[in-house]
């Protein structure tokens, strides 16, 4: 049988962002994949050197909407290292809370898309409805549904009073049973299982070779999580279990994400229960001397690394980041090998690719 080429992307209903897969198929089976990127390059890295150190918090937040808290978080941590600023314990806990709230919303979004891709729109609607609880929470606590603007250099820009904490507790109480129900559906529903089990497999050895990070690595049995390997903010004081599964298929990646969303609820409760007293941020803008630093955090998609170099002027000399999707999308070659055409979009979405982060 002869092969022919089908274009998946750059604009494709199943891809949330532009990416071009030139897929050679033989009947329904994929024989070769060429990945072309670069459609949403906006020159953000260059732009960071034209903005002041403080403006860059806002700029990095706008690289991507789903990891919009992780970028400024890592950026601020790098600047704090250079300037030698100690963040108060209260601010550290609040940072953890902001990023865990974002994590729940991000994971639920990806899991919902999976249901949509297998044509199970009812489950998609249900998960998105559950996610709306988290969106309400963000809007109430931070005043915004996606870009929450939580971080500043030396602390956070928001504070939680008793009213905020009780609203958080109430929303988590609403969220938990619904999340349990969603997990049950993904574990038992035949429509989901028959399309996702054994699809897009990335075994442990291949995962190590590709150096994948985040839920993709953990679904292939690699217990790597920045929150426990190199704890930052308040994570060293918190109990954060790392969820791993061995199969490395689309289903495992979804289940790991759901388990992490569950854990995030637990982490939020731990933070809320032991929220230290103290200031949330510095009164004045600190001076940032010349220097360089690396900071990393666990974004919803995995390890996010920031490198910042300053020269004592108002603007940073160089800002460079490595996003989790950059590591993960190379593994697509392994996952897509001999896949079915029907599963291409499912597999691509299972690494939760964040194109706008990667191409900036």
């Amino acid at each position, binding site marked *: 049988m002869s092969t022919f080429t089908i*274009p998946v992307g750059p604009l494709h209903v199943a891809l949330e962002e532009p990416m071009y897969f030139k897929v050679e198929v033989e009947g329904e089976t994929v024989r070769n994949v060429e990945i072309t990127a670069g459609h949403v390059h906006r020159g953000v890295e260059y732009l960071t050197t034209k903005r002041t150190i403080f403006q860059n918090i806002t700029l990095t937040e706008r690289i991507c909407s789903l990891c919009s808290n992780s970028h400024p978080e890592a950026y601020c941590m790098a600047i704090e290292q250079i300037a030698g600023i100690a963040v108060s314990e209260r601010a550290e806990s609040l940072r953890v809370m902001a990023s865990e709230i974002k994590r729940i919303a991000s994971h639920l979004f990806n899991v919902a898309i999976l249901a949509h891709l297998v*044509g*199970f*729109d009812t*489950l998609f609607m249900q998960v998105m409805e559950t996610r709306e609880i988290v969106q309400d929470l963000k809007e109430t606590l931070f005043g915004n549904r996606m870009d929450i603007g939580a971080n500043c250099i030396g602390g956070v820009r928001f504070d939680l009073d008793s009213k905020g904490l009780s609203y958080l507790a109430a929303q988590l109480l609403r969220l938990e049973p619904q999340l349990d129900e969603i997990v049950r559906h993904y574990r038992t529903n035949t*429509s989901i299982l*028959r399309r996702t089990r054994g699809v897009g497999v990335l075994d442990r050895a291949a995962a190590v070779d590709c150096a994948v990070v985040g839920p993709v690595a953990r679904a292939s049995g690699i217990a790597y999580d920045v929150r426990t390997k190199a704890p930052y903010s308040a994570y060293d004081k918190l109990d954060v279990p790392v969820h791993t599964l061995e199969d490395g298929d689309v289903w495992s990646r979804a289940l790991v994400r759901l388990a992490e969303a569950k854990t995030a609820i637990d982490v939020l409760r731990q933070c809320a229960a032991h929220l230290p007293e103290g200031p949330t941020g510095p009164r004045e803008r600190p001076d940032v001397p010349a220097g360089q630093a690396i900071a990393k955090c666990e974004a919803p998609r995995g390890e996010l690394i920031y490198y910042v170099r300053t020269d004592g002027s108002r603007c940073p000399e160089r800002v460079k980041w490595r996003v989790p999707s950059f590591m993960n999308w190379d593994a697509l070659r392994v996952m897509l090998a001999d896949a079915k*055409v029907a599963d291409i979009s499912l597999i691509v979405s299972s690494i939760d690719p964040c194109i706008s982060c990667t191409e900036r």
Partner: protein
Amino acid sequence: MPESLALLLSVAVFPGGVFALGLGLALKGVDRRLAARLQRRVGPPLMQPFFDLVKLTRKRTMIPDVACRAVFLGAPLAGVVAMLLAAALLPVPGLYEPSPALGDLLVLFYLLAVPAVVLMLAGSASGSPFGAIGFSREMMLMLAYEIPIVLVIVAVGLKTGIGRGEGMTLSLTEIVRYQRAHGAFLLDPAMWPALLAFLAFFPANLGIVPFDIAEAETEVLEGPLLEYSGPALGLFKMMSAAKAVVVLGLGICLFFPSGPDGLPGLAVHALKMLALMAVGVSVLRVSAGRMRIDQAFGFFLKWPLALAVAGVAAAVLA
């Protein structure tokens, strides 16, 4: 009224033509609203399919450079005509019996295959690789579901024929008359395997989840329909609306044609279609995900085929 004129009216106005299209689009509207409510959405107005059609007729049909123009435009037209003809071939229990001059169940069976063939033609004529994938998927699916549906028709034909003391009958009119006199097959446990096989067949024929494989939006971007726009796409919408009426009507004629005579009979017929649409289409498509083509192929060669064979055996023996 001369017979030729009556035939023409039956194809163009009632029960084919305008009536079948109107009913099909109305059913589609109900389906969309019901599915939306089941998913906790508000859903479109009930008239939305009509609005869509009007909108499409006012747009331009874009024809790809690589497309085969005649087939690209001819295919949807052939599909609509075939479906309107098929609608005229179906009795409306208690109100309308098709003229034998139009054809019998065999003709109807072949007409039912036309939409799938038309989609294949359209897919390959459009010159799009997604159309080509849609083509092969549609063909595999059709091969899988055609055998069970033939056996279902044979089972019903045999049951009626044996009941009347003769061989197999292929006249839908006779099948409807027999059931209206002796009770619907729906209530006869011996016919249930065939009924179940039919219930598996019609979602595949209508191309809804879990069998919307050939037109899967998230996989092959609606496959054969990808390159269609404007009035040509509108023709496909008309085809699928009329097809819903034909397939649902066929199910009612084969298994449950009971009801009053005259116009009340038409109302009961439409209500039965609505019920079958609600349960068999709306509820089904919101409660499952899509199968992969190999899974669907395997499914049809297992359960519906076994059920249909059992149905034939039960029809002969019981």
